[in-house]
């Protein structure tokens, strides 16, 4: 018997009892749609959380001098004992790795800034143009530090929001000259209000080219190098690159520590994936329930169609052909129901996205795929018993039933 004929006959049998078929389709569709919707919620939450973290710069790596055995971040940041200093050349070397999008060194220090009679103690941050993007700062007015040679000490600066307001009191500081320590700098721009970021008040900071800051503080060292990896999943590769590059430059000695944020994000990612999988599993239980429904209905169908089964046997149907007919019927039900369920689920996801645009709801492909798979598998597994019962009917007794 050809597969096409088996399928056609199964579909004809399903059409014969439209209400029953519709109810079974509904049961399966609800199960599949539940999987799709619940995993979409889980995935939406995961995307929201990881999205928030990436907004904070999850692709960020922080390079600091000295080797700390713990990779837990803060300890290395605090100890920072220097076997060998990081330099601007180290930063330039790191920037050449293809896995790295941008690099900026930072040289912070304390100093005073004055404009006319107004003077203020500030944090001075020597850095370079990529800092704006790496830190996701926004400009209030003017422009940020110009891209260019790291080693050129241009006499320019960018003022934090509070500093700009206090030094210039409502006047535009753009193009004005301020005195920072002993140096005079022209104001290129001001930052918009940023608030606290990691305990560091950007609003009370004056930002200037790294070479200028090194001159002011009379140092050739770089305090930290901030590195942004090319992609979220290349952070670890970027980390290895950085260590290798700096090791080669530091006479083969691994004397830096690279701190990443992605370990934290990866943990969240894992947690949310587990939650999503758990939701999918719970929803999949309804598919098993639908499978039991299929079994019951198919058992009824077998007893209703006893005469038909007897006839098929009389005209030469083999037992396995009868099994195939009933199994295909169960599989068709499952498949149709699953397709309806995926459609309903997708519509539900679209609706949720429309209602809560903040959350990026999306059913993962694996969830929809495995929901369809589980639906069909459950139809087949629970279809086996009725199909075998049909196949083992005695033809004489079966034919006595009309």
């Amino acid at each position, binding site marked *: *018997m*050809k597969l096409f*004929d088996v399928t056609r*006959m199964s579909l*004809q*049998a399903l*059409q*014969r009892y439209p209400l029953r078929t519709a109810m079974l389709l509904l049961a399966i569709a609800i199960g599949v749609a539940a999987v799709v919707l619940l995993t979409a919620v889980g995935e939406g939450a995961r995307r929201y959380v990881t999205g928030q973290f990436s907004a904070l710069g999850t692709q960020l790596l922080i390079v600091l001098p000295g080797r700390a055995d713990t990779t837990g971040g803060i300890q290395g940041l605090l100890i920072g004992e220097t076997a060998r200093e990081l330099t601007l050349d180290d930063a330039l070397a790191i920037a050449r790795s293809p896995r790295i999008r941008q690099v900026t060194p930072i040289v912070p220090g304390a100093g005073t800034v004055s404009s006319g009679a107004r003077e203020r103690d500030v944090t001075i941050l020597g850095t370079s143009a990529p800092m704006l993007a790496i830190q996701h700062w926004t400009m209030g007015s003017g422009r940020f530090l110009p891209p260019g040679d790291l080693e050129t000490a241009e006499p320019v600066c960018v003022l934090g929001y509070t500093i700009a307001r206090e030094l210039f009191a409502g006047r535009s500081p753009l193009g004005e000259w301020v005195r920072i320590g002993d140096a005079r700098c022209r104001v290129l721009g001001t930052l918009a209000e940023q608030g606290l970021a990691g305990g560091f008040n950007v609003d009370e900071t004056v930002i200037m080219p790294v070479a200028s800051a090194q001159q002011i503080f009379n140092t050739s060292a770089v305090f930290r190098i901030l590195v942004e990896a090319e992609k979220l999943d290349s952070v670890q590769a970027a980390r290895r690159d950085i260590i290798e590059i700096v090791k080669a430059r530091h006479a083969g000695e691994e004397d830096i520590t690279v701190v990443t944020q992605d370990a934290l994000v990866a943990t969240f990612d894992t947690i949310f994936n587990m939650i999503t999988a758990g939701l999918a599993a719970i929803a999949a239980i309804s598919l098993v329930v639908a499978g039991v429904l299929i079994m019951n209905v198919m058992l009824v169908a077998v007893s209703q169609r006893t*005469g*038909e089964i*007897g*006839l*098929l*046997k*009389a*005209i*030469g*149907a*083999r*037992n*396995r*052909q009868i099994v195939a007919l009933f199994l295909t019927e169960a599989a068709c039900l499952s498949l149709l129901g699953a397709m309806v369920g995926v459609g309903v689920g997708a519509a539900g996801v679209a609706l949720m996205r429309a209602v809560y645009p903040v959350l990026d709801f999306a059913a993962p492909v694996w969830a929809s795929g495995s929901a369809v798979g589980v639906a069909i598998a459950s139809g087949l597994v629970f279809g086996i018993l009725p199909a075998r019962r049909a196949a083992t009917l005695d*033809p*004489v007794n079966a*034919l006595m039933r*009309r």
Partner: protein
Amino acid sequence: MMELSQICREYAVGGETVHALDHVDLTIRAGEYVSIMGPSGSGKSTLLNVLGLLDRPTSGTYRLKGEDVSHLDDDALAAHRQQHIGFIFQFFHLIPRLTALENVELPLVLTGAAPRARRERAAAILESVGLKTRIDHRPDQLSGGERQRVAIGRAMVMQPSFLLADEPTGNLDTKSGGEIMQLVEQLHHNGIALLIVTHDPLIGGRAHRHLTLRDGKIVGDVADAKP
């Protein structure tokens, strides 16, 4: 040729053994026209079912076309039914959701025949049983006589050597019953062996050989003189 020797068929009914067939010896030759008659419970339907390989004898030997089929498994029996035996039933046993054409081509579907070939064959058969204009009708759109014609078409589509009919006119009025008998007798003229189980002496009397059963035994086996 169908050859039964010492065939018994026993049922256990409520702790009691019923001998539906009791040491039956019988030979049906190719192209015969045989009626099987007898009171209810005489075993005539059981005999037809055993001959048609729907039922297995409890003991004895059955040779179909020279092959011992007494102990074959389900699938082998199904294969023999498919190849050699056509059935007609009192209640037609058409599949209600299928058209006349689809019912007739069903045996061919089971063999995996190509759609176009089997459709042409089924359509030709339906035409030969006088249902050319009813090809796309479903059983509930057909009269009783027409339904039995479809069933005959289905029995003939595999070109069997034996046509087994269990009360083929039992559910029809006299007129359509007579038409059905004419049709199956036409098939007999074309060479098929025809076995009819019936209560009706008028139907049974048309055969050329008359078997009478009582209590599972053949008590009468009368052949007409050759015409």
